């Protein structure tokens, strides 16, 4: 069953979004420790939207849907109605650079790409849609 949670794009709602995914996992009997890569990736994506998708005075919504398939994989879909923005288009930070050469930031989406099995962005009907998949084979 798919469950969608819709809340405004504000940092105070971050925990509710993450709890939504945690609850859906525990409902399926999945150890929350195994959910770490999904929770981390979701936080990175949500914080990006919360920070940049909408103007401060007019925060729109974020729609979060998670669905589990029979192979025990999870698909997370995050939708916002902000300006078109593909978070995956940014180049990855160079983690081989030395400490002083390296800036802070850009790490979140890099981690998301590394931790999830699949991350896809699409723009459709004024919506930014980010779909992430993580497999949990038995």
């Amino acid at each position, binding site marked *: 069953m798919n469950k969608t949670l819709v809340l405004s794009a504000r*940092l*105070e709602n*971050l*925990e509710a979004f*993450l709890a939504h995914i945690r609850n859906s996992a525990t409902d399926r009997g999945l150890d929350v*420790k195994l959910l*770490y*890569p999904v*929770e*981390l990736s979701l*936080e*990175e994506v949500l*914080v990006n939207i919360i920070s940049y998708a909408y103007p401060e005075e007019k925060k729109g919504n974020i729609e979060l849907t998670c669905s589990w398939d029979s192979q025990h994989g999870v698909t997370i879909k995050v939708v916002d109605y902000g300006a078109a923005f593909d978070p995956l288009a940014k180049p990855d930070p160079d*983690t*081989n650079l*030395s*400490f002083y050469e*390296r800036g*802070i*930031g850009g*790490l*979140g989406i*890099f*981690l998301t790409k*590394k*931790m999830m099995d699949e991350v896809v962005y699409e723009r459709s009907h004024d919506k930014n849609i980010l779909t992430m998949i993580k497999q949990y084979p038995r």
Partner: protein
Amino acid sequence: MEIGKLVEEGRCVVGLKGRLDAVTAPELELSLGKIIEEGNLNIVLDLTNLEYVSSAGLRIFLVATKKVKALKGELCLAGLSGNIKEVIEISGFPSIMPCYDTMEDLP
């Protein structure tokens, strides 16, 4: 998240417990800023009881490291295991600051 502080053997051990995410990271940034201002330049972040960290938390590790390095000090991470260790390794932190699997591994 809980932040504990213990000054021993010339170093300051900062223990983190719980979840270090975009909501709790500013709290750690403030605490570490204060600890550095107090003159603690040899800092160990004990992550043994940390359950979760995201890039918001990793950013604080980097900011604090830059601050203490500018003052000729050092910050290291200890108590790395499981998910937390994986994320820190993927991010390339071991080449930026000393990282130890357990508190006992500290020099």
